[in-house]
């Protein structure tokens, strides 16, 4: 096989539910593998916060929408002779298939590397899949592929209810679920067929064990399984929603190897070249199996398997795609043995999903066959209990483990029902049930969870019970507890001692953890890499402390508000430290990240970011210093605690970091500096809150202190709304005060991201939000350089930034958010750490802000002239939402962050960049028909010019009576459809269901006031909500923000055909 000269890699775009940071990891690995082979790499991915789009990786990077049009342009321009389809998730794969089907690849002579397209088809088309597997005697769930509702009903009747419906060509099981009656089937499928052409009706396998294998095959037909995994939650719960353990725990040798053999037989027959995974259902009573699916590409599971075993699946898959064979490749850990082997683990890992459903009003916390989790964690241990409790802490939801939480939260009143009908808090319901004396047998009956897992959880509860309050526990008990993953804090809760006291006593008793290596061969051969974890189930360290290393704390799980950007920042920090000759140590536990690639730091601890564990590591390593400012809020929250325990925190002093975090102190500081800020108050009771709101004047913004991503934030326009919010979302007390501030309407937001050294500003970038204040900065469309901000405002913002930097003696990264109204400028907040926009500003300006920040922390020379404002191009960053996954959630922009990712694009003009950026986030340009529903007079009046433009551009406008009446009065033709509640037809929904409308502009009267109906049923009757929800469910582009709608229409009018250019990143940078 001839090696290609230049290869195009399709990325996965913005992070969304079902497709997250794992594809940054797999893409980065692929690029590394290709470059090692001397192949030039072209990367197309609008996800600007990724490591793979960094300089020094691909030879050319295109921040462009992952669409046929743009991909074709890139191919025409770059003329690659090979393409990789399997490294950009379902998005990359679907685009690749489209390029193949439309003949683009053939036209330009681009060869598909690795798994052939025919094989991908066999795995994606369910009919073909079943047929192909039957050819080699492999069993699949009995299923029928259908393309309409009637055929589905027929198939279901034949199989017998309950049945499972699954949509083909969809990532993360979107549109899948158990259906128990024909009525339910009809309702579900009428919606699903809007977005997918084909649906499978299948036999129901609820309660069967769910097992998965990661399989690698090369062109010479060598085939191995790198890892198997077993779900704690049996079939019926999506594997992305399940707690997963690797290797399998309850399978016998016969079961393990029977499924393994079937995996290899199947994958050989299908002809995969590279990596894939295969999922099984395994009957716990009979051992019968069904193959559920094969993903012929890198996946979330493959990233997890790579981290679980130390086997770099993506790297190997890329090499195999170029024609290498497995025996030719070396084991990346030992360097002396072959890659043609199957890792032997002498530890186990547990993956747990992280949900953020509380951020979405109306979303239920029930979990099932559709993926809703936004991130995951992986815990390593040498006992199940140890890994399990680590994992629960790693989720960063406030749990201290399975039991004994400091917060006293995680009480589940109706635990039995949550065990029966799984929810996001089922794991805590298990703890409650065991506390209440419910037998494991009963729990097994209700949940189908294997008795083995339940016996391990019972063991945790047994140990918990052995402690007593106020009594010093015997050393043997403490040791037993530590081996079962209890933290010092948990033991403190159980004995009534402080975490520090428990730690001190434990150390005196010589109960200390050991550091072990993940070496792929269970000790059979020595490892050359330092991929490490910490355990109490061992007596010997595998390594010696190196001393004087610099520790970088990672970001923890991806969740709303903390995403791939903090992984990017951590990776930059490691690189910069390495370049400065430092020994580097990374601590992180998110398997979807690049920072947890053991190639990167000198030592990787796949470990908790808890005070206890970070201290363990810092003490063991005798670290020279710790970087806390590149991993988001989790490490930032440790700064002061580490400082108090004499750990050297690099950069800004933790006391100064705290001065920015503590609202009172920061407010006083702003007053002292003469910097304006919105009026605010801190309150501990509801009564005071009402009083304060009256004083500040409604609307008010309410939030608890110390937040990231605006958790539990809201704008209240009147007292009833305020009271309702406080009741619903916040536990107000003296320990948990809330902060209330005057909410300023129609103000604009500006952000400064910067780096300082010794209190002097080194570099800064200023960006502005398209949406007015009221949209969370993480959900806003952000423009760099600013387009509408007065020069005077820019100067003032910079002056303020300089003053704050000086006052806090900042060394390292920081971010300041401003409100601008007319010529006034106010500071909303300041974070003395890297913010989520650091990768964006770094890549747009061409200056790596983290590199400068870390250099500054090390005392290096960072002086220079950095041009960041006067650029000859514009970049726009857009939020990526996952509303289609969160059933029932209202897709309105709000003060609470709801986006799961972001994308960005460059343009020669603001308009070009805006459209490309929106397209990158999945928006589609309208062709003909636009539905408009505007609430309130102000929205109508202000949007009139834009709507006139749309009409002039030849768009046909539809609307409900209020809006169309207004349009007609103003001389714009529009067609009226009835509102839903009138009961007349055709109404809005029939219009939206008729596949006619290709853009919806729906601006509610008060965009900021989410209707807080306590009863979701009432809310569903609301027309605006139903329109927005239908837009999401039917996949129709939706604009809900007036400023964004205006900007979009203007851009649409400005940009002519061919105005959206496919230019690589470096061409823009060269423009200066």
């Amino acid at each position, binding site marked *: 096989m001839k090696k290609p000269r230049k290869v195009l890699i399709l990325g996965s775009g913005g992070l969304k539910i079902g497709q997250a940071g794992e594809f940054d990891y797999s893409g980065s690995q692929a690029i590394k593998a290709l470059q090692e082979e001397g192949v030039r790499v072209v990367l197309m991915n609008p996800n600007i916060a990724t490591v793979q789009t960094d300089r020094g990786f691909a030879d050319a990077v295109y921040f462009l929408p992952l669409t046929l049009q743009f991909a074709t342009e890139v191919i025409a321009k770059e003329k690659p002779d090979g393409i990789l389809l399997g490294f950009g998730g379902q998005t990359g794969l679907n685009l690749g298939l489209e390029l193949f089907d439309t003949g683009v690849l053939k036209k330009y002579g681009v060869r598909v590397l690795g798994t052939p397209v025919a094989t991908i088809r066999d795995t994606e088309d369910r009919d073909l899949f079943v047929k192909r597997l039957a050819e080699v005697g492999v069993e699949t769930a009995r299923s029928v592929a259908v393309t309409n509702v009637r055929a589905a009903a027929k198939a279901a009747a034949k199989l017998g209810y309950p049945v499972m419906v699954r949509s083909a060509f969809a990532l993360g099981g979107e549109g899948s679920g158990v259906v128990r009656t024909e009525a339910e089937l009809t309702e579900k499928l009428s919606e699903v067929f809007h977005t997918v052409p084909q649906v499978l009706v299948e036999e129901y396998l609820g309660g069967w064990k769910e097992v998965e294998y990661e399989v690698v095959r090369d062109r010479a037909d060598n085939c191995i399984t790198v890892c198997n995994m077993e779900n704690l939650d049996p079939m019926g719960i999506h594997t992305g929603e399940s707690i997963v353990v690797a290797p399998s725990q309850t399978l016998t040798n016969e079961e393990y190897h029977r499924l393994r053999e079937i995996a290899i037989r199947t994958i050989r027959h299908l002809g995969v070249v590279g990596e894939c995974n295969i999922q099984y259902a395994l009957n716990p009573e009979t051992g019968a199996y069904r193959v559920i699916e094969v993903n012929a590409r890198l996946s979330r599971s493959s990233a997890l398997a790579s981290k679980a075993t130390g086997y770099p699946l993506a790297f190997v898959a890329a090499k195999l795609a170029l024609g290498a064979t497995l025996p030719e490749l070396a084991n990346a850990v030992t360097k002396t*043995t072959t890659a043609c082997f199957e890792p032997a683990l002498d530890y186990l890992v547990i993956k747990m999903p992280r949900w953020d459903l509380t951020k979405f009003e109306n979303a239920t916390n029930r979990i099932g066959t559709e993926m809703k989790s936004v991130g995951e964690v992986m815990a390593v241990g040498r006992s199940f209990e140890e890994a399990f409790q680590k994992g629960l802490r790693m989720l960063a939801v406030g749990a201290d483990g399975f039991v004994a939480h400091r917060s006293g939260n995680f009480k589940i009143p109706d635990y039995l029902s949550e065990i029966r009908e799984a929810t996001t808090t089922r794991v805590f319901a298990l703890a409650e049930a065991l506390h209440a004396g419910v037998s494991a047998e009963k729990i097994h009956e209700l949940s189908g969870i294997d008795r083995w897992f339940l016996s391990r959880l019972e063991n945790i509860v047994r140990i918990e019970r052995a402690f007593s309050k106020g009594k010093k526990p015997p050393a043997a008990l403490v040791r037993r507890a530590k081996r079962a993953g209890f933290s010092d804090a948990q033991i403190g809760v159980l004995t009534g001692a402080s975490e520090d006291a428990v730690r001190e006593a434990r150390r005196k008793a010589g109960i200390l953890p050991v550091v072990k290596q993940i070496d792929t061969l269970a000790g059979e051969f020595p490892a050359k890499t330092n991929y490490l974890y910490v355990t109490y189930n061992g007596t010997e360290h595998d390594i010696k402390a190196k001393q004087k290393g610099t520790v970088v704390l990672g970001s923890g799980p991806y969740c709303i508000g903390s995403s791939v950007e903090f992984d990017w920042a951590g990776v930059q920090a490691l690189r910069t430290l390495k370049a400065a000759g430092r020994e580097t140590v990374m601590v992180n536990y998110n398997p979807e990240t690049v920072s947890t690639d053991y190639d990167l730091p000198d030592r990787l601890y796949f470990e908790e970011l808890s005070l206890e564990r970070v201290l363990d590591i810092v003490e063991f390593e005798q670290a020279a210093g710790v970087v806390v400012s590149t991993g988001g809020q989790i490490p930032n929250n440790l700064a002061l605690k580490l400082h108090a325990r004499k750990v050297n925190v690099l950069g800004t002093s933790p006391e100064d970091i705290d001065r920015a975090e503590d609202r009172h102190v920061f407010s006083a500081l702003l007053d002292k500096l003469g910097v304006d800020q919105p009026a605010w108050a801190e309150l501990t009771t509801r009564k005071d809150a009402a009083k304060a709101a009256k004083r500040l004047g409604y609307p008010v913004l309410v939030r608890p202190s110390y937040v990231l991503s605006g958790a539990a934030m809201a704008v209240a326009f009147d007292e009833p709304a305020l009271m309702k919010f406080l009741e619903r979302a916040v536990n107000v007390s003296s320990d948990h005060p809330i902060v209330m501030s005057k909410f300023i309407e129609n103000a604009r937001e500006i952000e400064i991201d910067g780096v300082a050294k010794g209190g002097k500003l080194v570099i800064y970038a200023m960006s502005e939000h398209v949406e007015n204040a009221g949209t969370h900065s993480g959900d806003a469309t952000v423009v760099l350089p600013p387009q509408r901000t007065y020069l005077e405002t820019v100067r003032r913002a910079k002056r303020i930034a300089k003053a704050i930097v000086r006052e806090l003696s900042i060394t390292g990264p920081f971010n300041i958010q401003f409100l601008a109204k007319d010529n006034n400028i106010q500071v909303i907040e300041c974070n003395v750490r890297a913010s989520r926009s650091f990768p964006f500003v770094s890549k747009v300006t061409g200056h790596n802000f983290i590199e400068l920040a870390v250099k500054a922390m090390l005392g290096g020379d960072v002086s220079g002239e950095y041009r960041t404002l006067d650029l000859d191009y514009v970049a726009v960053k857009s939020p990526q939402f996952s509303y289609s996954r969160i059933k029932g959630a209202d897709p309105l922009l709000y003060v609470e962050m709801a986006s799961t990712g972001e994308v960005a694009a460059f343009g020669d003009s603001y308009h070009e960049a805006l459209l490309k950026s929106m397209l990158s986030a999945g928006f589609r340009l309208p062709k003909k028909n636009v539905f408009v529903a505007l609430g309130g007079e102000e929205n109508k009046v202000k949007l009139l010019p834009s709507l006139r433009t749309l009409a002039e551009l030849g768009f046909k406008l539809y609307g409900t009576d209020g809006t169309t009446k207004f349009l007609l009065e103003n001389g714009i033709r529009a067609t009226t459809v009835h509102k839903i509640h009138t009961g007349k037809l055709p109404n809005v929904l029939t219009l939206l269901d008729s596949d006619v409308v290709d853009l919806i502009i729906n601006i509610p009267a008060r965009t900021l006031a989410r209707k807080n109906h306590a009863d979701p049923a009432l809310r569903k009757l609301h027309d605006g909500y139903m329109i927005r929800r239908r837009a999401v469910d039917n996949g129709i582009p939706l604009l809900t923000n007036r400023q964004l709608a205006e900007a979009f229409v203007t851009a649409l009018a400005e940009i002519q055909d061919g105005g959206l250019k496919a230019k690589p990143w470096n061409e823009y940078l060269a423009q200066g």
Partner: protein
Amino acid sequence: MTLSLADGTTVEGSSFGAPVSVSAEVVFNTGMVGYVESLSDPSYAGQILVLTYPLVGNYGVPSPESFESKKIHAAGLVVAEYVDEYSNHTAVESLSAWLTREGIPAMSGVDTRALTKILREHGVMEGRLNHSRAKRENVFSTSDNFVAKVSPEERTVEGEGDVTILAVDCGMKENIVRSLRARGARVIRVPWDYDFSGEAYDGVLLSNGPGDPMTCAATVANVRKAFEADAPMLGICLGTQMMALAAGAKTYKLKYGHRAQNQPCALSGTERCFITSQNHGYAVDAKTLPKDWEVWFANANDGSVEGIRHKTKPFRAVQFHPEAAPGPTDTAWVFDEFLASVRKRKKAS
């Protein structure tokens, strides 16, 4: 309970087996499943088995039909964590109950990774599992003839078939017999030192077994005699070493053996490499192979011989376990090829 190694290392743990002490060679296996198959594999006779996977006992112990022999042959078991609450539909009892009933000592609570690293660095060595309330002590020495202890006493015939395979049982795993029977062969099972020159058979299988092949001089002599008959012959594990010795090659003891389910074996002259299950402490020295023999498989990790074959005659042998149990089944085709050659020859004659 304690484990003391010949180098002076002593580790403590808790007993979950029989109250017995034992002295024997200490070896480690890195498989993540398969403790039932390993413990009942006669090749572990006279060895204390250390498992590197930390949780053992999870799926209990099934009924004896699926064992690899009638009883536990390993001398003792050492694990990190023993899990008594087993769960699997095939289980009939716990691992602890089985071990106790069979009089085999077992110890948990050990850092088996640390122990494995010692064995890797120093090589396998003698050790003593010391139970504080031991009623007796079993003592094994590596110079023992373990094959004589685990081989059957009498010739037996199993099944019916179009071809007859004479299997020299030096401690043969049941799954070898199952593999032959499943492919339609009749199996004559004979003791290790049985002179089978007078038997009527179509092919010979030399089984796996424990210990040093040099202690099996009688078998080696019989194999040398059988070479003359030209009937297809397949050696497995110890059978490979005996075939090599019969051909005039030499064997040697590996530093710490291959006991795993993930051993990569490259098929000579091809790009193919197979994942195999292994349990052996001795290996064939490639340099000493006579010129009419060649290496069939080589270990992709350390280059050691994993299979030999005669250049012109149907004599082949694999150091790994094509019958799996425990471990991957990828090389079951070795049986297919063997029986094909047996049938081909039978048809021709």
